[in-house]
């Protein structure tokens, strides 16, 4: 749903599959301090889970 939200709002994003990409997984765990997905990085600010309101705030929507 996070990807749909970004696409609907014409926001470009890079997706990393933390299940297959070990380096991406370790980076996610190190930076977010936890294992839950998705973790969304918007200009260095992290959101764990799909939080529509917070994403709109950080994206200026």
């Amino acid at each position, binding site marked *: 749903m996070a990807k749909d939200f970004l696409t609907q709002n014409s926001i470009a994003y890079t997706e990393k599959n*933390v*299940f297959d990409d070990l380096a991406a*997984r370790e980076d996610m765990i190190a930076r977010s301090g*936890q*294992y*839950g*997905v998705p973790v969304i990085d918007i200009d260095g600010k992290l959101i*764990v889970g799909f939080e*529509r*309101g917070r994403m709109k705030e950080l994206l200026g929507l």
Partner: protein
Amino acid sequence: MKTSDLIIIGTGPAGLAAALYAGRYLLNTVVIGKTFGGEAGRAGKIWNYPGVKEIDGLDLTLVMREQAEAVGALIVDDSVESIENKGGCHVVKTSEGVEYSGKALIIAQGAERKHLGIVNEKELHGRGVHYCITCDGPLYKDKVIAVVGGGDASVKGVNLAAQYAKKIYLIVRDPQIVAEPINHDEMKKLGDKVEVLLDTEIAEIVGGAHIEAVRLSKPYNGSEMLPLDAMFIEIGAKPSTVFPSSLGVKLDASGYIVVDPMMQTNVAGVYAAGDATAFFGRFKQNITAAAMGAVAATSAYSYIQSSPHVCDVHWKEAGREGRTM
């Protein structure tokens, strides 16, 4: 304020099936839900939805969404802040401040996952303590995990986790597992990879930055401490009572909405469907949710047809006065 004939709370199978039927009844319908797909969206592979041989739960609900939208339903991905009855209208306000008014309301908001309610559970959520094995399970490849719960969801979770976990402990409070026999048989085929601990509860979750172990209610292999890399809690759900209570909707002793065979509650124009009710007792499935949604929409349609002046709203748009549908 946006007006409609019918407002549906919940975007799982109950809500989406209701929206499909409502759309085919030519009802102006709005469906509002925070977590699209509900429990079905997180269920992983589904094999027992008649007409579909095998499908991912999220994909199933996406098809339902397409069907509902094709007949005119408006799906709003947002959470509900409040529901009130104002002059015969059901007014729903979302967390983004948008208000929707409808002649009839279907509550299909599902139920929330139960927590164990023990020490460190909240603190370690996401740090080895999880509630969705399809979401977070694959992160624990070659690790030792526990799945807590003795029902079908936990057994399916074990079967899924076996694809990547090194070892799985299924911790069951009761003396037996209650799961679909076909799923239970699949789990038995996993052999020593899965250890089933019956009559056992989690007394404590131990860990600092991440889970390290759980303390069991009784010893296993001589010790109460079971070292783990993660645990997945699948102990069922409890209904949310906030909105039903605000409307005066009758609830049963467990907080589920009481409905009659046509999904009617004790409040005129208010219906309920899916896991927010206990109409089929503990048997909660996508098929029962969808069926209840269809019935609720049919009842809402009959109500609106027989009460044409309920929630009359007069509005102006660009200088034109009119009546909502």
